[in-house]
């Protein structure tokens, strides 16, 4: 057992900010991110005697965050597509980097939930495809397909932005 993770509170306090950022990218909303992280931490707290003994409690809780988000969607029976923050006015003279960043976020916001989770796990958490597949409970090929489609979509979006 890793003695450094035996205390839930110390472990959770050290990770909660990172988990919230991760959850925000997966859910696209501050409120949903807080809900997902709180639910995941609650379960981890309840089972800490066992979760703390696993070699990677971070991975366990990250998985719970993703599952909480996807389960909420399925429970609600909705198939909404999250929409990026709506801005009435496009800041045309903003730096190109800001425009690209917005394009990335719009692309992520339009993705189905599992696909979006795959992109965040790949490019924000820097996980390998095999690790993402294990976390999302799907094949590595499916993860690669998710990521490939997302990048294709982003490329198209950026090209169209440049043409405008």
């Amino acid at each position, binding site marked *: 057992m890793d003695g450094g993770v035996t205390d839930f509170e110390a472990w959770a306090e050290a990770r909660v900010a990172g988990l919230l950022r991760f959850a*925000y990218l997966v859910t696209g909303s501050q409120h949903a991110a807080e809900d997902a992280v709180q639910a995941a931490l609650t379960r981890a707290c309840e089972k800490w005697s066992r979760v703390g003994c696993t070699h990677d409690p971070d991975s366990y809780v990250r998985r719970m965050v993703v599952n909480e988000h996807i389960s909420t969607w399925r429970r609600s029976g909705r198939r909404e597509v999250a929409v990026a923050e709506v801005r009435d006015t496009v800041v045309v003279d903003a730096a190109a980097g800001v425009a*690209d960043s917005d394009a*990335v976020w719009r692309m*992520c916001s339009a993705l189905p939930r599992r696909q979006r989770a795959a992109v965040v796990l790949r*490019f924000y958490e820097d996980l390998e495809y095999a690790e993402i597949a294990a976390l999302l409970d799907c094949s590595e090929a499916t993860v690669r397909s998710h990521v490939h489609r997302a990048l294709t979509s982003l490329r198209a979006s950026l090209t169209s932005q440049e043409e405008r």
Partner: protein
Amino acid sequence: MDDLEQLVRDGLRERAERVDTTAPLVARARQSARRRRGARAVVAAAAAVVIVVGGAAILDGSRDVSPSPAPDVTSDGAETPTPMAPDGWRTEQWHDLAVDVPAHWGYGSAPIRTDRRPTICDDRRPGPYVGRPVMASDMCMFAAWIEPEDPYVWLGADLEPGIVVVGDGLVQETVEVAGTTLTVAADDPLRRRILGSARRGGTCPGELGGVPTARLPIATTGHGLMVCAYRSEDGQPRLVGGELLDAAAARQLIGSYRASALMSRAPECEDAADEEMLLLQVRDRQWVAGLQCQGIREVGEDDWFQPFLTGPDRWEVGVLPHVLAWIFGSPTKSG
């Protein structure tokens, strides 16, 4: 790494930096966990009374005594032997509802509500079918646009009770029964017969009330393998369908269970919110399996094992591939 990937990394990182991380989530999680532990202690105390009563019956020597029911299973559920569907008919289950339908009907989806309009997400083939509100496909269309030619039954559809004429003179009737909705679109005699067969409680318990730790009351299913499929709704596993597989499937399950290895990730399987769970029965043995955590445990035992099975393809029978994303979302199915 190409520029596009770096752009995504930078874009996500930039967004993540804007997130407010000041909410006291750790303290809230601890409080929430304490409350849930307290609630479970009350349930455990109640369950202890049940066990004492059940234990007394066993000491009496009556071996046929019903196993301890799970706290949350409805009392008028599966303890009563389920009436068999008449010849040429089969019984379909959804939550606490059981209803008989013609045995040759296929499977499909029932409407879910999206953007306040009932929508069907399915790529089903034509023909009479039984639909459930499970999104088995990304192909969705508003229910009002569908002009059905064949009869159907929808279990648990998000519709108001009432009668409407749909398609080519087909009458669709929705009623509330056993805590859910039953919708039948068929000619008059068939519709009445199907609606008349609706009842509370089938072979499988309508909900699990958590990951089962004691045997649940399921009618005897002989040498076959009874598969009760559950999906998590508000953290509770609710029944979405049941299927009796043959004796070969039962032998395969038992063989697979014997050969499986002790799990190292057991905590995930202890979570009743696992999106999809199975309750399995072969003769007097029962197992619970978490399809997300890919673990299986014999009811009454402590340890979880995996892998659950070698692959979902051998489970593509009856209703199962239409309600379990584990099967319809598997790489073999999605191509």
